[in-house]
């Protein structure tokens, strides 16, 4: 097994490129859903101490909306689409054709719509992944929570915590032209999956 945390610069580049292609597809999908121009940054592939992960999204007590999907297949992992509460509410307004600021809390319909967005984004991400790596991955049904970032990230972190003290995250930030949508898309491969991914793209 490749030691996860001992990747060469080339292998990191390869992972970043995989993330990039996935994210490009995902940004396009998001842009089509809300009919707005969506920018993304170059994905960050980072190995960070587990306890620092919540800082990526504003600290452990920041209130965020998260759509969570488990990914099954040869390289299992978790996908999280995270948005600050305000931006999630704007996105719901966009999806429902209401002016920004209308949504004050999420009802069943809103939750369902956000989950569907998570679904679409994940689908396009994994699809790109498949084209690049030939590893097919199947997402679970989406699940949604609105809560403190630390609490939400617990879900993936405990899993990684069993294997080590660090987390490898492939993260992309999305930003709409009018700043209304600002989300983070995280792929957190299970321990053991990174080796499979790196091998699949044939980088030594």
């Amino acid at each position: 097994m490749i030691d996860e945390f001992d990747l060469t610069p080339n292998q990191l580049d390869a992972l970043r490129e995989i993330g990039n292609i996935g994210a490009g597809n995902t940004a396009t999908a998001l842009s089509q859903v809300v009919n707005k121009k969506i920018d993304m940054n170059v994905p960050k592939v980072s190995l960070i101490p587990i306890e620092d992960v919540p800082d990526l999204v504003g600290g452990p007590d920041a209130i965020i909306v998260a759509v969570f999907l488990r990914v099954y297949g040869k390289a299992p992992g978790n996908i999280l689409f995270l948005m600050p509460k305000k931006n999630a509410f704007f996105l719901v307004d966009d999806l429902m054709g209401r002016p920004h600021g209308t949504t004050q809390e999420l009802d069943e319909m809103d939750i369902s719509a956000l989950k569907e967005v998570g679904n679409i984004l994940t689908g396009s991400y994994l699809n790109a992944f498949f084209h690049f790596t030939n590893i097919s991955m199947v997402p679970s049904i989406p699940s949604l929570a609105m809560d403190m970032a630390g609490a939400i990230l617990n879900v993936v972190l405990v899993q990684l915590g069993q294997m080590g003290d660090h987390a490898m995250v492939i993260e992309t930030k999305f930003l709409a032209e009018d700043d209304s949508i600002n989300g983070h898309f995280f792929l957190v491969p299970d321990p053991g999956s990174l080796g499979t991914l790196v091998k699949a793209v044939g980088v030594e």
Partner: protein
Amino acid sequence: MADLIKVGMADYKVGRSPSTLISYGLGSCIGISLYDPQRKIGGLLHIMLPDSTQARSSDNPAKFADTGIPLMINDVVALGASRSRLVAKIAGGAQMFAFSNATDIMRVGTRNAETCKQILRRNGIKVIAEDTGGNYGRTVSIDLNTGSYKVKTIDRGEKNI
């Protein structure tokens, strides 16, 4: 102004009155507070997993209930607390996402809570209050002047246990 001492995930801190120890955003994690009401000395531990023997090696004993709790007990005693007077309160252990086919790891919150109580009992420490389970996050803090353990949530208000 009393100190506010932050306790990160998989970490613990000990202190004395008038400090307050706080840990933000617990999901399935558990915040375990220890307190000696007479000396007003206590500690707060934020564990992620129940059992270090089921995990691959880790450099961080504070990540697990079985290794973290004894460590914190030693430290509060070293600071001057009496072991026999120590009382514990625990909060956290939620399951954040509901899945019908939830794997064991998603139910880790429940196991965390059970294990914490077991280990505290084994160390002769009484758990006098508990706020665990549910599907929501918690921020916990212990006021070392009063021993009051505050549990804050985003939709369910806050309470002192």
